[in-house]
């Protein structure tokens, strides 16, 4: 099976600091892959490299859309990565606070639609049909995510958990085949985390979108993931199934420090 996302020897330097050191990662289609590691391990930097926010110092990133051919996306602009089918959410929520929930999702449809300035002024049939389709599709997505009761509310007025879900809805609106979630459960209460778990599974199974997530909530990661990568100090120190990772001495060391008694 061709990996849906592959990073080869990806390195990122910030001045003298090596935030990523020859990281190799393979994400398989139809799977939920997790990336864990202590704070400052370089997980978000890795996401930023993939999604074009940073341009990696060395290494390559390839994606293979389902039924498509392998494509190199190293150093792509942010919007071109999204256009290629890799959407993301952010660690600190970045919804558009002064737009309504529906409008937030409508923005996600931007890159799959193409009416321009002239269409906006003339409002010809094509533009209006497209506009209608954007609204209909956005509403459909919100329905699936379960945010329809807030549809006309300004996003800033949403409760925290709903804001996180909105960010996911907005990312899904760009028709991705791979969704990158940066700490989706951060700050959520146990009930919200449970709902999120169900949502992520449904994204994989019903939406048929592969998921690659960074998460600190170990219960969530271990219960959810098909495969787990562990990073520490910019290096990939382990990969495997949740079961293997749990028993990996390297991982335990990274999280808990050296075993003094040994």
């Amino acid at each position, binding site marked *: 099976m061709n990996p849906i996302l592959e990073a080869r020897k990806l390195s990122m330097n910030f001045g003298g600091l090596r935030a990523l050191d020859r990281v190799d990662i393979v994400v398989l289609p139809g799977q939920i892959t997790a990336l864990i590691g202590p704070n400052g391990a370089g997980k978000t930097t890795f996401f930023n490299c993939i999604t074009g926010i940073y341009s990696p110092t060395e290494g390559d990133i390839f994606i293979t859309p389902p039924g498509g051919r392998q494509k190199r996306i190293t150093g792509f602009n942010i919007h071109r990565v999204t256009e290629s089918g890799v959407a993301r959410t952010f660690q600190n929520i970045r919804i*558009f606070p*002064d*737009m309504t929930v529906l*409008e937030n999702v409508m*923005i*996600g449809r931007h890159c799959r639609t193409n009416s321009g300035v002239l269409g906006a002024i003339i409002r010809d049939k094509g533009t209006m049909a497209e506009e209608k389709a954007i*609204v209909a599709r956005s509403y459909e997505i919100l329905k699936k995510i379960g945010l329809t009761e807030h549809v*006309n509310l300004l996003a800033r007025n949403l409760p925290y958990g709903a804001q996180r879900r909105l960010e996911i809805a907005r990312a899904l609106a760009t028709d991705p085949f791979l969704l990158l979630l940066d700490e989706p459960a951060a700050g959520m209460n146990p009930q919200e985390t449970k709902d999120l778990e169900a949502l992520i599974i449904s994204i994989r199974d019903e939406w048929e979108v592969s998921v690659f997530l960074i998460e600190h909530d170990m219960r969530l990661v271990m219960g959810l993931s098909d495969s787990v990568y562990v990073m520490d100090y910019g290096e990939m120190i382990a990969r495997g199934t949740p079961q293997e990772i749990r028993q990996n001495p390297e991982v335990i060391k990274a999280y808990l420090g050296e075993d003094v008694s040994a």
Partner: protein
Amino acid sequence: MSTLNNTKYIEGMKQSVVVSLWFMFLTFPIMVIRVNTIENIIEWRWMNMIYVGAGSFILSFIWRYLSGKDISRRKESIDAQGGHRSYLQRLVSEKRLSLPALAIVFGIAIIFPFVSSTYQTNIMTTALMYVVLGLGLNIVVGQAGLLNLGYVAFYAAGAYTYALLHHHFGVGFWLALPLGALAATILGVLLALPVLRLQGDYLAIVTLGFGEITRLVLENWNEFSFGPSGISGIPRPGLFGMEMGMHDATVYLYFLMIILCIVTIFVVNRLQDSRIGRALLALREDEIACQAMGIDKTRVKLTAFALGSTWAGLVGVIFAAKTTFVNPASFTFLESAMILSIVVLGGTGSIIGIIIGALLLILLPEYLRAFSDYRMLLFGLIMVIMMTFRPQGIVTGVRKTYEFHREENKL
């Protein structure tokens, strides 16, 4: 209860005394001391000091009263969960009210030139020009959130396009109108390209520089723009080759401006409620998230600059035709500041607010000619008071949001 009120009252008195002492001290050198250079003596005008003291004492009371009221009102509106809307907003949003209001405004606009003098019509035409300029700048500043302090450069581009094309090739007004707009649009894109990475203050400084550079080029490149002496003899717009007198030409220009205003409002309004308008808004809200949604930042910013400067180009051509003369002195930074003031004072993002802002800022100084010495002082005072008590502008920009209704399934 009464003792509480009493202490509050005494507190207020104390504050006002301090304020008036401060003002007396600050204005002492200019208001009290006067050097009489003819007789070589110093005049001490102590009466002025008393005026300043008494005046600032009373003003500080009014100030405190107003700001106290403002705070309590703000609390009220928070209590009402933002359900509080001003009369103007209601006037705009409710069809029942807005249609008759629109009809009345339109009626007045049609009748205006026939009941007033050429001078009045001329002033009104100028005000309408600033309405269009304000609406154009609003696309860049209000919608896309890109602070542009060099907007006058595009205005100049339109004016000089007509002036130069007429001077060299005898091009007429109607051909120059689209060409001027095109020139301004191209200039807008050219400016946008290098400043794409800049935000906030940095963008403001670069655009400010750009505006000044444009003016300096026009002033110094004699072979191209004829320097400070400018270009004269630009014809007014024609109407099927008819010869028009001064008055008729003014009225004709007035109606042209009315039409251009309507077109601008129509287009700006439609742009706001479109895929492009949404992208501009998203870009203003969060640049990174906006890009992560697959929106090409470069393209959206270029579009915003291009759309904004087009209007300036159009108005520039009309300006050249109206004054029949252009020179760089008409395109100073003060013009940019004026247009920006219109946008900010009227209410960033609000079409009706900008119209009111433009009419106020352009018409008020004209009708305050009686106090022409204090015009700028008054102008400044109004700005300070506005920004203190109503920083969101005369009309708060209430965006028409998309609302989803299941049954109708439409916007």
